[in-house]
Structures are given as C-alpha cells and as structure tokens.
C-alpha cells in the first residue's frame, strides 16, 4: 500500500496538521519510505493470534465513586492561551 497525495492531505486533515501544498510531495515520499519498511510485518503468520492491546498483563483496577477532585478552576485555566472569566475560548463555532 502506498500513499497518494490525496491520502496525505486527508490524513493531515484528520490529524489537524496544516500542510502546505508544497510539502505534500516530500511528506508523501517520507511516509511511503516508512510504510514500505513496516510492510515486512505482512510476512508474519498471525492466524489465530490474539492482539496484545496494552503494556500491562493485568485486569483493570476500579476506583471508588467519590468526589476527590475539581474546584481548581485557577489551575485548570492557568495555562490557557486565551480565557474569558473561567471559560476557555475558541474562534466562534457555527453549528
């Protein structure tokens, strides 16, 4: 499988990374180099093998339902690039 320019633009869009039109060809080359190399995995026989999803081989631990956090709006907003009162802001979203 190899990426065409349209796919490069599509995944850049999905990833919300602005890519200048002049960079598409370079990225296409680099990404195809990497994809071509990882293509070697297709030679491994994985029939009947369960996927390993996580790093730890244990079951999930649960926490008790208690309010132990929150009421830290100052900390939550302390790094905000733009805020109004205790709100974050973004350019106006029209639905």
């Amino acid at each position: 499988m190899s990426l065409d320019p349209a796919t490069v633009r599509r995944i850049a869009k999905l990833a919300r990374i602005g890519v200048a039109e002049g960079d598409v060809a370079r990225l296409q080359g680099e990404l195809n180099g990497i994809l071509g190399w990882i293509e070697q995995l297709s030679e491994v026989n994985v029939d009947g093998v369960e996927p390993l999803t996580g790093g730890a081989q244990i079951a999930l631990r649960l926490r008790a339902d208690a309010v132990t956090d929150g009421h830290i709006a100052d900390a939550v907003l302390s790094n905000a690039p733009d805020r109004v009162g205790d709100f974050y802001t973004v350019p106006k979203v029209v639905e």
Partner: protein
Amino acid sequence: MTYTLQGSTGTWEIVCGLEVHAQVISRSKLFSGAATDFGSEPNSQVSLVDAAFPGMLPVLNEECVAQAVRTGLGLNAQINLNSRFDRKNYFYADLPSGYQISQFEQPIVGRGEVEVELPDGSARRIGITRLHLEQDAGKSLHDQDPSRSFIDLNRCGVALMEIVSEPDIRSPEEAGAYLRKLRTVLRYLGTCDGNMDEGSMRADVNVSVRHAGEPFRTRCEVKNVNSIRFVMLAIEAEARRQVEIWEAGQEVHQETRLFDPARNETRSMRSKEDAHDYRYFPDPDLLPLVLEQGWVARLKASLPELPDAKRARFVRDYGLTPYDAAVLVAEQSIAAFFETVASGRNARLAANWITGDFFAALNRTGRTIETSPVTAETLGALLDLMADGTINGRIAKEVFEAMVDTGAAPADIVQQRGLRQVTDTGAIDDAVNAVLAANPDKLAEYRSGKDKLFGFFVGQVMKAMAGRGNPALVNEALRARLSV
C-alpha cells in the same frame, strides 16, 4: 396496530432504531474524581484529567460500571464479563483530549430486550443491541461573544450509557412508548434520572422507510433529539422526507441530520464536510475490564422489583387490568402510593380512584405525587368511609375535592360538613313521599309503564337529601312505595 405512510407509489413502512445517551447517576465522573452536579460555575467541576493536561491518566469509576451492569440486568441483557474501552478520535472544542473514551468492539452489555405497552393495549418487544459506557463532552457557549465560543468542561467526562436498540420500531408511537419504558426502567434502577430537559437522556434516531416485506433501505441519523414528543415528530418528518425522495425516483443518502422543531422538519448537518473516520483503537491507558460473575450476581440480587414484574404482580395479586397496572407502575412512587391505598382494601376501587380523580386532581393543581395534599393514607381513609357506609360514593367525590383543597382528613371533612350518609329509614321515607307528592305527573307516567323514570325518582330523593341518602336504602324505599 400498523402505522404506514401513504405515498403515490404505495404504502410505506417506517423502520426505526434509537440510540439513547443516558447520563449515569454517580457522584464523580467516569474517569476522574470531579463532581457531576448540574449547573455549577464554569470549569469548577473539572480535574486536570478532564481537561486532558499532559500526563493525566484515566481511572475507572466502579459505581459507573455497576450502574451499567444494573441497567443491563434491567433490560434483560447479556452482561459481558470481559469488555474494553476504546478511543474514538476526533477534534472538537469541547473534547479536550481529542478523543472520547468509549466502548466500541467489546461493550459491557450485549443483547437484551424491552417490552413496551401501546395505548391500544397491545405489547411489542423492542430488541436492545448493546449498552456501552462512554464519556460525555463539555459544553460550548456560542452566544456570549461576537467572535468566540466559550468552553465549559463541567460535563466533560461525566459517564453516559449509550443504549442502542435494534431497528425494531415501526411507528412514532412505538418510539415514544419505548423511550417512556426505558426511562421508567432507568428510574426504577436508579441508574439515570431520565430528565430529558436537563439533557440527562438524549436520543439519536435512525430512520429509514420501505415497502412492506422489502429489505432495509438507506437510513439517516437524526442527532440529539431532546424530548419524547420531538422524537416522535422527527421520525414522522424524516420518514415523510424519505418517502418523497424515493417516490421522486431519487436516492436517500446516508447522513446525519438535525430536527428543527420550529419547522417540524429535519435538515442536514453542516459539519459533514470531512467524512468521519474515528480511528477507534483500544485505549492504552486502560486495561481490559474484567467482571466477576459473583459481583454481577450480587448486583442482580440487590435490584428493586422492576416495572414488568410489578405490573404482573398487580394484575395477579390485585386483579387489575393490564392497562391500569401498566399506568400504575410507570413510576415507582405511584406504584408505592397505590400499594399503600390498596392494602387491605378493594384494590380495583383504589386503582380507579388513583388513575381517575387523583391523577386528574394532580393535573389540575399542577402538583406531583410527592407534593399532593391527598396522601395515600388519607385516600385510603376515604375508601374506608365508603366501605363502612359512613358516606356514599357520590359524597366521597365531594369529600375528595375538599381533601384536595384543604389537605384535611376525610373523617374531619365529613364531620364538619355533616356529610355522613343517612340510613334512618324514617327520614328516607319522608323524602320519598315528598318527592312523589311533588311530581304527580311523573308518577302517573311511571305507573303507565315508563319504568325508566325510576332513576329520576332516585335522583330527586338524593337531591332532597343533599346527596347523603344511603343509595341502597333509597332504592329499597322507593321500590316499596311505588309497588303499592
């Protein structure tokens, strides 16, 4: 009951499935220790986990898992002892991490079903495809500033149960009945307050149409409909739109739409320009969720009696009609009210009073069962006064209205207003004689064979006695006097 749409090319049937997002009742969020209360100061119920600060990690809330399992059990569904959390990746202003933690491939609850009762007395089984746990998003405020939207993450991370039905629904009424039943079950279980106004229950509606017997056609999803009435209207509007498209020889395209209640129509969502590709994958910050059978069994043992079981018991033990029973079990508080009134009394009479005069009074006065001046105890006392002959049924209505107005005990009202039933035969005979004497013409008609006038005489006698005459004794005295 078959619901169809009539088109120029024939009869169309609706195929509908619902995805309901129900907010889980829990103190803290699904993966963080921040509170879930409604209506707090902006960004006050937000932890650094909810705001997706670098290095913050999710830890699953046990109670949210228990609530999902309780709900699954209440929907007669398969509980999956092994489930998993996946990330659903997309960018949005109120989704800080850029992904929603949800369950995609292995939900915590599998297949189940709900039985819904329709107003015509028939019942339908609606299949449940699955129930999974996921996080709610935050809230964007668009009307506070000319150029910016404001973001409040208080709701972000609150646990939701997404309950997906099979495409088993065939009419707006069935959709309404399904949602009401689902809400009843969730409230019984205490897993969701079912409050659609506050957004704690929201529905996505999948609609397609077809000619009877056909395979399914393309469906559209109407997102985020926030009342049962709007769900019913949206289904109808969307089905009508699709019928028009098909009948014009065009194709319905699968898409996400919104319902506009003001215009009673659905419209395409603008934001579909980039086709969604959610790139689901298992969340590597979490591990497989493994439940113990014994834990599930203990939850099951602790469930309250659910509406279907309660309704069956009301029919069996109290001799109610299935419809009355269904009405009474719709809310736990009503069912409990009924059982208090019915205990040791005529249960059918109790049911009639509750579904009749009592509900009418609540409606009229805008009160709820919790704030009603008439309590189960005082209503029961009223029934007792009828049973022991202190008052008759007609006076009972009067006493009831006084109870609604004053909240007083029925015995006190009867006492104060002198409403005690008259069983003194001398007084009854006097009233009978006076009525007959005052209506010689009617008496003559009766004597010449117009039997129906008997009722007229009863009414006149009761009126003369201010409604307080014992109806049996009045009948008896009249009959004796007229047969002479």
